[in-house]
């Protein structure tokens, strides 16, 4: 039976085009790949190639014809041994076949006639996003010794413990090895694990982030340190497009067990390019987990969890918090669940929601508020994605009032997201609109007085809390 050549579509949205030119004439021999015609739209031209070997038996649409519908047979190719007499006989079925192989979404008419192609389900309603339950923090046995250490030390211990446990874990980044870390977080790791596993990189964020992702796709478990998250903007394509999306785009085949970590947020007096909070940026991305601890214990337990997690994790530390000391339980294997917030201080009048550096403002504000008779409940989110909405909502149902605290900018910020979730899930429990305390919408200024103004303050948190309490 002669083979039909159909009017092709140049793009999924094209419905018709012009048959500009026939490059072969009836009776010409053609072989697979030969250009036989040229078609065009207002945007592009395309060459129609013969798909089969044979003779161009008949041209059905002459050159110069405008607005030829996609999938219309435009010519017939005769196979070896067939002759022109076969053309007539095959004609009715030609039309039918065109309809059958028509694209699923092109027009309702062809769709109805096309049993071979499954009906597109695009009109279906999206299913509900599945809910995930996160385990509570592990119990710390009574009598466990508590060790006071800085967050810097806690992070180092977390990496060292995981590197001892799993030889696939390695650390790479600028100055992580011989220099012992730009902020001394990797202190001593080179000495213990050697230069095969503690690797100084050139200053090539985009390159080494991508190299880390490649190593993770191959099954290793890299910890990629960014000297600060400000510089990771050069690598953000690899973090989002390669690390976060590959599992999905591979239908679940290619996991990417990697941790990207480093100091985030405002440092002191370094101005706009070195002082920025990326909480909102990364917590926007499906496929990433985002952690931002405020205490040494949380930093340790969550970094260990992040290293073990089979997904890409963005671990946002804070330069100012590195030096803060707090108690860490002395346990052989202290791992905390990712995705679980913590009530850092219980209260009944207003809920303050913060993470990382924001917690220092929130806790001090709660202290001051207590002096004025307002009992604030302070939630430390610890993980930004997945966000523990349950803990937030339970608290707001109790207090009826909420204030979010973040160093980042308000627009499209994490506070905005929290406010939206409270509005969606606890609207009837609210006694006042949710208030946001955030960084001012300016690049970070250098001058000491302006920098202070650009950042949230304890006073602003106190003021916002009082305002939602109508006091």
């Amino acid at each position, binding site marked *: 039976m002669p083979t039909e050549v*159909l009017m*092709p*579509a*140049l*793009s*999924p949205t094209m419905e018709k085009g012009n048959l500009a030119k026939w490059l072969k004439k009836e009776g010409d021999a053609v072989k*697979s*790949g030969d250009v036989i015609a040229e078609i065009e739209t207002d*945007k*592009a*031209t*395309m*060459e129609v190639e013969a*798909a089969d070997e044979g003779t161009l038996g008949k041209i059905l649409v002459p050159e110069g014809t405008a607005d030829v519908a*996609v*999938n219309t047979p435009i010519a017939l190719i005769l196979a070896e041994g067939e002759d022109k007499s076969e053309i007539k006989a095959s004609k009715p079925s030609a039309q039918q076949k065109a309809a059958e*192989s*028509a*694209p*699923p*979404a092109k027009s309702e008419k062809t769709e109805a006639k096309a049993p*071979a*192609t*499954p009906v597109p389900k695009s009109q*279906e309603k*999206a*299913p509900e996003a*599945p809910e995930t339950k996160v385990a509570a923090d592990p119990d710390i046995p009574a009598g466990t010794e508590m060790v006071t250490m800085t967050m810097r030390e806690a992070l180092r211990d977390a990496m060292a413990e995981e590197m001892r446990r799993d030889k696939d874990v390695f650390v790479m980044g600028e100055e992580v090895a011989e220099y012992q870390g730009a902020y001394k977080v990797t202190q001593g790791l080179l000495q213990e694990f050697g230069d*095969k596993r503690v690797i100084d*990189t*050139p200053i*090539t964020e*985009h*390159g*080494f*982030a*991508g*190299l*880390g*992702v*490649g*190593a993770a*796709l*191959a*099954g*290793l478990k890299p910890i990629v340190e960014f000297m600060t998250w400000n510089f990771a903007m050069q690598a953000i*394509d*690899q973090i989002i497009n*390669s690390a976060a999306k590959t*599992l*999905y*785009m*591979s*239908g*679940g*085949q*290619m*996991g990417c067990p990697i941790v990207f970590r480093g100091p985030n947020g405002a440092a002191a007096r370094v101005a706009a390019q070195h002082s920025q909070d990326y909480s909102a940026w990364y917590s926007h991305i499906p496929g990433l*987990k985002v952690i931002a601890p405020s205490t040494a214990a949380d930093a340790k337990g969550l970094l260990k969890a992040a290293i073990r997690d089979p*997904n890409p994790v963005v671990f946002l530390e804070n330069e100012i918090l590195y030096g803060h000391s707090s108690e860490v339980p002395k346990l052989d294997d202290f791992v905390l669940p990712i995705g679980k917030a913590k009530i850092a201080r219980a209260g009944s009048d207003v809920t303050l929601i913060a993470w990382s550096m924001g917690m220092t403002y929130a806790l001090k504000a709660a202290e001051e508020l207590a002096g004025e008779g307002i009992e604030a409940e302070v939630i430390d989110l610890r993980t930004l994605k997945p966000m523990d909405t349950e803990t937030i909502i339970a608290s707001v149902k109790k207090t009826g009032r909420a204030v979010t605290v973040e160093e980042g900018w308000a627009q499209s910020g994490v506070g905005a997201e929290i406010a939206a979730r409270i509005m969606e899930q606890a609207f009837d429990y609210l006694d006042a609109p949710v208030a946001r305390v955030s960084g001012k919408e300016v690049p970070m200024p250098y001058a000491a007085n302006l920098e202070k103004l650009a950042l949230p303050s304890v006073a602003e948190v106190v003021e916002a809390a009082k305002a939602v309490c109508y006091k």
Partner: protein
Amino acid sequence: MAVAKKSPNTEEPAAPEGPIADFSKAQELDAYRMMLTIRRFEEKAGQMYGMGLIGGFCHLYIGQEAVVVGMQMAMKEGDQVITGYRDHGHMIATGMDAKGVMAELTGRTHGYSKGKGGSMHMFSKEKGFYGGHGIVGAQVPLGTGLAFANRYRGNDNISVTYFGDGAANQGQVYESFNMAELWKLPAIYIIENNRYAMGTSVTRASAETNLSRRGLSFNIPGVQVDGMDVRAVKAAGDKAAEWCRAGKGPFILEMLTYRYRGHSMSDPAKYRTREEVEKVRTMHDPIDMARHRILERKFASEDELKKIDADVRSLVNEAAEFATNDPEPDTAELYTDIYR
């Protein structure tokens, strides 16, 4: 890594000795069949795109078949392959199933990515194929990371990273070159120079048009190869692989090749003449040349080649049939595979 402290690499690969070695009968016939499979697969994909069964971008590999087929012949079990979006040929060459590839092109359940990746994003851990990447140049650090993993594990596998002449101008390529040589990673970089990046010719985009020289300042050896001759590709691939497996670091092969079709399916085609395309097609087609050699050396008769053609055609037709009738993914798949 320990090797970073070694003095820079000053060894140069030996100059090619005389003409390209001929293939054995089995090699010629295997390479012919594989190149033809890719060609027919791509032609079919083009037709299915034209029928609206394939959506979005669809970049065909027609004309460049000898590059991936020759390179695959230089690889061994456990080696890894990674490339950009013009990836169908690489997948077929690594031995991925044509049905699964075609069903991914049509966005169906049994596509390699369950229909969630499409033409540009497919993977097969089993076959060592690491994608399938849509961001020009992004596969280069990733491929370097695959080589890093081989080095870290101390095996003697290599990674083969393919990218285009356009991608060769991306900064991350040079960040990768530097690390690969610094740490002596077993990475072969294949620059598929098909003369154009979309509508921009190499001469309009590259200050140094001999792309094999792009590794010079990193001390990475580079060689230009006739990418239309599968034997030349295999020979160059063997040398590069030997170099990498010996722990001497990365190697660059610039494959001089050509794409016959437009960049994607929709292409204004105003940046080159039809004569230019026709000239390559009639004088340097990798498949025609292989066919000619086979007949000349009497490795197969016309009839035996016809039989191969028919086999290939039916394999491709089955793939197309499968990909047309396979159902779309279940809507429950919307939320799977985001996290493990």
